[in-house]
């Protein structure tokens, strides 16, 4: 009998265990977006009541931008809000907001209470969100000077995400 055959089950088990271990660290809530490295969708969103500017595709051209889909009804967005405010204060990258499936008065209350980190906000009934491949809020996109989506973050951004992922990417894209 060949001795190595006895080792086969051990090897198979080790491979499976390694596969499962890697799978444990995989966040199944984060889906890969097919829009990465594609042009951002065409859209033209109206402003929130009382704001003078909406948000459209034309605003994305010419500079690196962060596009953040949020809503006043979304609890993780509240968690993310101070992080976005801190980022806005550094003036390293303009943040544009897509107010996703929100009631405008609730959105205005939220901005009044928590502050407004957004250079522009567009009010979206949900259709533009679909064009961006949004399946939950918050979601954040990094768009380059040419208007192409280069990175997508699903879920609230943390300070670490900004420092270790977003800002280095912004710096690289601006070159």
């Amino acid at each position: 009998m060949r001795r190595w055959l006895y080792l086969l089950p051990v090897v198979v088990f080790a491979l499976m265990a390694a596969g499962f271990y890697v799978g444990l660290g995989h966040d199944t809530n984060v889906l890969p977006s097919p829009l990465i490295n594609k042009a951002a969708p065409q859209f033209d969103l109206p402003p929130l009541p009382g704001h003078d500017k909406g948000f459209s595709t034309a605003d994305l051209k010419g500079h690196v931008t962060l596009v953040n889909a949020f809503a006043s009804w979304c609890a993780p967005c509240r968690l993310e809000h101070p992080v976005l405010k801190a980022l806005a204060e550094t003036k390293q990258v303009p943040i544009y907001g897509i107010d996703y499936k929100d009631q405008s008065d609730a959105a205005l209350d939220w901005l009044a209470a928590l502050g407004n980190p957004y250079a522009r906000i567009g009010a979206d009934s949900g259709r533009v969100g679909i064009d961006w491949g949004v399946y939950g809020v918050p979601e954040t996109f990094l768009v380059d000077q040419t208007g192409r989506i280069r990175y997508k973050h699903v879920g609230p951004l943390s300070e670490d995400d900004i420092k270790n992922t977003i800002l280095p990417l912004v710096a690289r894209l601006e070159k």
Partner: protein
Amino acid sequence: MTPFSSLRGARSATRQSRAVGGHIGSRLLRHARNDGTKFFLVLLLLLCLAIPAHAVRPDEMLKDPALEARAREIGQELRCLVCRNQSIDDSDADLAHDLRVLVRQRLVAGDTDQQVIGYIVSRYGDFVLLKPPFKYDTYLLWLGPGLILLAGLWGLGRYMRRQAGMTGPPPLSADEEGRLAQILKERAEPHGHRGSTP
């Protein structure tokens, strides 16, 4: 009468009936069993009436029944990304509602089924399809079970061949094979004129 004694009474009554005429008891039993079966069958038929509940709202539906039927077919194939293991037709999520409306808008605009599905896939990726497409990163998914089956058959074949080998005679050595070939050739030679060899 306590419940116990009544039970005992009933038992003794059955015993009596069996003693008096076994065939009457067995007929009763058969009758009861038929009733049970009938009840079960009716229950089963009623269950067939329970059609799956869809989340499609009346205000979403299209007036054209042909287009609506196509929309339903497409809706069954698309995953709701909020609930993950429901189709957009089955899901009550807001996004599923938006996607159902979108599917219908595309159909009314004249898109083919494939174009509608492509429209959604270009935004949400292959994951939105409940049936994964057959392409390079899903080969293992689609072919894996077949490969495992083949590996199993190969292992089984090996095992069975070895089992057969254990009871049968040992295989011929190269030397024996050569001698066998020689013998067969010599035997064939006298009838050479019938064969192709000159």
